[in-house]
């Protein structure tokens, strides 16, 4: 069985400050890792994904994440956030061809 833990339910941050959203996972098999963003009353948009290869993954909107196998983590980072980044962020894990297992989500609140 796979599980995902997002360590922070809410992260408040000032505009133009850096941010890190934490995600840890557990799995007995090799996994694919994803970060999705959900704006209020909207669907899920893929930010970035780790399938294999380089452990530093770059995504859309200036986000990046680093896969750390030894720590079973896949933290999401952005060096400078904007007001428009205010949304809920979900970390998810799957094994090949299988369902996504989501974390509980982290609400990023960017303040001016």
């Amino acid at each position, binding site marked *: 069985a796979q599980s995902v833990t997002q360590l922070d339910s809410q992260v408040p941050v000032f505009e133009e400050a850096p941010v890190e959203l934490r995600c840890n996972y557990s799995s007995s098999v090799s996994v694919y890792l994803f970060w999705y963003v959900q704006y209020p009353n*909207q*669907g899920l948009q*893929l930010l970035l*994904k780790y*399938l294999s290869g380089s452990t530093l993954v770059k995504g859309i909107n200036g986000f990046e994440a680093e896969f750390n196998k030894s720590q079973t983590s896949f933290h999401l980072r952005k060096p400078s956030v904007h007001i428009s980044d205010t949304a809920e962020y979900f970390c998810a894990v799957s094994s*090949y061809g299988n369902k*996504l297992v*989501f974390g509980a*989500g982290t609400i990023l609140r960017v303040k001016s």
Partner: protein
Amino acid sequence: AAGVIQSPRHLIKEKRETATLKCYPIPRHDTVYWYQQGPGQDPQFLISFYEKMQSDKGSIPDRFSAQQFSDYHSELNMSSLELGDSALYFCASSFPGLGSNEQFFGPGTRLTVL
């Protein structure tokens, strides 16, 4: 580029009624997943289909059923609706032959049960 289409986008039903949600995957995608996201919750996997056969089943109530048709679209049928069924229902599609498990999500159907 074509995206996943879900209909209807919004649906209001009374308790004990039935509802049918439809999902049209991206062309050439042969796998469809259904997820349920309750208020303030993370999406929970319900069921998936690959090549018109059920491939996996999650926490889907017995009152719900689903199928994938020959054109790969899928329908989620929900009967004896309960207040707790009020949620956002997402459909996602993928094409495992691409070598990844990236799932492309539709905009969701918001079901409200009164």
